[in-house]
């Protein structure tokens, strides 16, 4: 779906879900939704990433990074995404935390510590969460150098690239810890630190191929309804879920999504609630809202990936995982490729997935998530911020449907 930045869309603020019907809904341009949301929280999040760029160490890193130009280092491919806004990028993580912060309102005795309805500490937290995510993402771009021979001349450059990647990521994570200390809230520090732990856990979850890309797990036979992954109600300070959910279709997908994005976003929102002393219920609501937003976002990304890259889509994306769950023989594509040590037949798998009811289930999941988001966000009192959140979710929801249809 093309992003039209010149599209002049007039936006109406919906006071509740009932105002919006399929006919009345206008096509909401993502960029406009984001811009409007940014205005609501009074912070141009498009500059969020630039602040730390102006720091000495990072300036040095830039010099080192230049040496990577011309190499095949994965960092260069990711760098573009890290700095330039796109729908799948991180900046929205900070924006969502700010929106949720505002939507929850502030206690009366903190009225002097905010701008545009968001506490300074909440802004700092949003930035910290962005940095944490960025730092981790940067570490993920490290090149696999196990087989020196494969790379030949490029080996030295890739090694150098890995060093820079490692240090830059470390720098960001160190800044996070320092920033968290500055918030002077030990509970928030603990919470966000568990977020980083979960990100790493997500990188080790389940089976992997030789390049360390994730693979779906073998589908489990039993249809035991008791074993559902209840992320909303688990103690999120402890490790999330368990390996029992692997091979259980939606639950495996949910676990992976929570680990790789839901946890951090959810905990960012929860932390923001803590900073504003909104109480335990709102903290839980914040976590749940953040979690669902991450889930719907991941659904969108997985669907888009599947339809736009029919030869290289993620094998642990929702379409594939749900297909395997519904029709376990689809797993044979994965298994055979693994045993015979050959690449996956993406095209055939694509058609196999489409032949199942996977997309139908996906649509149901999408609707469920949208409903959950609306329900939980309705508990947040401040109108403009809440509506902005709902609009963002709605936009994602609609665009996902567009791909499926």
């Amino acid at each position, binding site marked *: 779906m093309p992003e039209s930045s010149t599209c002049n869309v007039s936006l109406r603020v919906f006071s509740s879900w009932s105002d919006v019907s399929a006919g009345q809904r206008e096509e909401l341009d993502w960029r406009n939704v984001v811009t409007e949301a940014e205005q609501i929280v009074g912070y141009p999040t498009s500059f969020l990433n630039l602040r730390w760029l102006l720091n000495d*160490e990072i300036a040095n890193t830039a010099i080192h990074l230049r040496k990577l130009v011309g190499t095949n280092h994965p960092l260069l491919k990711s760098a573009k995404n890290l700095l330039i806004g796109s729908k799948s990028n991180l900046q929205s993580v900070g924006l969502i935390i700010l929106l949720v912060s505002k939507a929850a309102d502030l206690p009366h005795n903190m009225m002097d510590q905010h701008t545009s309805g968001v506490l300074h500490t909440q802004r700092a937290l949003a930035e910290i969460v962005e940095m944490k995510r960025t730092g981790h993402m940067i*570490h993920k771009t490290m090149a696999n150098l196990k087989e020196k021979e494969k790379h030949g001349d490029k080996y030295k450059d890739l090694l150098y690239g890995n060093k820079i990647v*490692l240090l830059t*990521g470390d720098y960001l*994570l*160190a800044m996070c810890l320092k920033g968290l200390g500055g918030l002077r809230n030990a509970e928030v520090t603990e919470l966000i630190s568990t977020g*980083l732990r979960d990100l790493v856990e997500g990188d*080790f979850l389940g089976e992997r191929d030789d390049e360390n890309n994730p693979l779906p797990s073998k589908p489990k036979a039993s249809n035991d309804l008791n074993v559902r992954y209840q992320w909303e109600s688990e103690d999120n300070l402890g*490790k999330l879920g368990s*390996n029992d959910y692997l091979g259980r279709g939606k639950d495996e997908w949910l676990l992976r999504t929570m680990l790789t994005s839901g946890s951090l976003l959810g905990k960012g929102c929860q932390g923001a609630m803590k900073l504003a002393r909104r109480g335990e219920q709102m903290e839980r609501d914040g976590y749940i809202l953040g979690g669902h937003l991450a889930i719907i976002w991941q659904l969108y990304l997985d669907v888009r990936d599947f339809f736009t890259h029919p030869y290289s889509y993620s094998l642990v994306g929702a379409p594939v995982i749900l297909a395997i769950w519904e029709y376990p023989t689809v797993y044979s594509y994965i298994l055979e490729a693994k045993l015979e040590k050959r690449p996956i037949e993406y095209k055939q798998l694509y058609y196999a997935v489409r032949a199942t009811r996977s997309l139908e289930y996906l649509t149901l999941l999408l609707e469920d998530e949208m409903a959950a988001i609306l329900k939980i966000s309705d508990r947040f009192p401040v109108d403009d911020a809440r509506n902005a959140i709902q609009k963002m979710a709605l936009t994602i929801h609609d665009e996902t449907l567009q791909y499926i249809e």
Partner: protein
Amino acid sequence: MACLSSSRLCARVQDKLMCQFGPKVRRQTVFVKLKPPGPSPLRIFGKTCQRVTTCGPACGSAGGGAVAGAARRLASSLQSTSTGSLPDYGTQIVDPYRLLEDDLNGIYEDIRSELERNTNQPELNTIATYYFDGQGKALRPMVTTLMARAVNYHVYGENSALLPTQRQVAMISEMIHSASLIHDDVIDQSDFRRGKPSVNVLWNHKKVAMAGDFILAVASMMIARLRSDEVTLVLSQVVTDLVQGEFMQLGSKETENERFAHYLTKTYRKTASLIANSVKAVALLSGADENTCELAFQYGRNLGLSFQLVDDLLDFVSSAQAMGKPTAADLRLGLATAPVLFACEKYPELNPMIMRRFQEAGDVEKAFELVHKSRGLEQTRFLARKHGVEAARLAAELADSPYQKGLVVTTDLVLNRIK
């Protein structure tokens, strides 16, 4: 810690030392195996010593003349070690590792359980716990615990116990240290550490980086659970310093003067900061006043600098077997450490070699040779000693206790180790 295996003060005559130091005549580091008279247990300040028969008089006060006499002989032989004289410890010889045996016991196990508790993935657990097998020197937890006890004694007197929070700091300091080692091994491409293949040899870079992040995440959780804003700030400063130290290592300075200052700052950040801030953290947790906390910090800083200087020295004089890793490692990495920087004075031809990071063929060997020919090693030793003495002086300002003595002894141990 030359003569200390995991927890005792045992005696070993170090013949090897004679060969290592070349033409310079060195006194051996001698510790004597002593059997105290009779089967009765000895006591230090209320603490009963077990396993008395195998070791020297780590237990001090009670016990009788023969032991005291043996202790004095021990003290005098300690004094004859290579780095020059240090104050007489009196009749109470203290081995910090033995002193803290109960406290340090199980510290590695506890770290491993904490890590295990936070992941469901076996591979992550394996990589993360790889360096927590108890084979390390455990210097940081030891010093941290020692300072905690010494400050507790200073503030509260004889009946002070080690706080659980302080023990957590000891664990955290070791975890931060290991996480940084794991990342360093990727950057340095080292093959060996602590006598076994380093972690990046066994797993790819990405997994290793992730495991380091995981350890850091768990350490951060533990820091937060201490529920002290001050301590959180102090310990988070360590992580920042470690990273900045690594960045400094990537760059280099032009002039000689700048270079040495750069080296010292880098050394502080990479090594001393962790020790300094960990001991400051335990002092804070003890409720000590500002002066005492600052004193603890400065002790840690000086000890750390001394430690690193000796490390840099050992890279030139020790053997691969003793170190657990190959020597002249710093030169091979392109790093100009104190011995080289000092040697520049006499051999300016080292300057261009430093600038090109010893990359040209023969640079490493030539530099190695020139360092030995110059007074670089001696000057490094002198500087290390200076910091060691300063640390000892600071420690002496704390109230008298076996732990305070332990802090002084530690400065000596750091100076006299062979690995």
